[in-house]
């Protein structure tokens, strides 16, 4: 990671103005959202500590492969969005729509895999009311899925917008959307180990 930062960014000097990507409000929104998720993580861990055997037994019923593939999908998608933004910044706007389209494909695949995963659970007779573990599982992954749906809509808008982008256009809107999408990725990075891997 350190080599990556050395090559892709200019060295920070005092002359370069520190810059928050996108608009300030998006960051305020994201932090509020992340605090809510953090509270849910804490609540999940607390209820888990009250009933270790049940949570561990239920966890083993989860599909680790689908969860893992979904983690990779979101990471890839996030990286593609970074590439799209770089294309816009480096005045190669024609590449941006391609990257956004690929990122959107990853996002949509995530939804499809999640639907398959939920269906497997329903087929096995597991629902939100089965026990406390599955309550957290369905609610937290469901709320995250809601964020993915909103994120996909944002990616679609950015894809559409970037088709007519010219070099030198303002990229604030792209940065705001990208920041939100990275947060969706970030939340899944935390949610996945919490539900699927903690034992």
């Amino acid at each position, binding site marked *: 990671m350190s080599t990556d930062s050395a090559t892709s960014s200019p060295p920070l000097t005092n002359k370069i103005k520190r810059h928050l990507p996108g608009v300030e409000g998006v960051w305020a929104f994201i932090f509020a959202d992340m605090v809510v998720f*953090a509270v849910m993580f804490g609540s999940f861990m607390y209820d888990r500590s009250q009933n270790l055997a049940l949570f561990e037994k239920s966890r083993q019923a989860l599909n680790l492969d689908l969860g893992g593939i979904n983690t990779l999908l979101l990471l890839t998608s996030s990286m593609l*969005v970074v590439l799209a933004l770089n294309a816009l910044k480096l005045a190669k706007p024609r590449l941006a729509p391609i990257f956004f389209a690929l990122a959107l494909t990853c996002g949509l695949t995530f939804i499809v895999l999640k639907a398959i995963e939920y269906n497997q659970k329903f087929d096995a007779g597991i629902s939100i009311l089965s026990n406390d573990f599955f309550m957290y599982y369905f609610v937290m992954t469901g709320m995250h899925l809601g964020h993915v749906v909103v994120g996909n809509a944002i990616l679609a808008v950015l894809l559409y917008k970037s088709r007519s982008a010219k070099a030198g256009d303002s990229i604030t809107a792209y940065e705001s959307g990208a920041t939100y999408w990275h947060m969706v990725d970030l939340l899944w990075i935390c949610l996945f180990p919490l539900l699927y891997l903690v034992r």
Partner: protein
Amino acid sequence: MLGTATSTWGFTLSSVNPITSTISVMLISAVKAALVMFFFMELRHAPKAWQLAATIWVAITCAVVISIYLL
């Protein structure tokens, strides 16, 4: 980043001691979360206050999860 994800994945599939594996998994995901914030979300060029807020979020979330796990 992709490497980290795959390592997390493979790591827990093998049967290591649960406590060691859980704590390493949580620490790895905390590092991944920080990397996403600082590199993907470009916090590394952002004002110090936002960097601090992001670091505090990762630190507190990770600390809370691990301490409740160990209790």
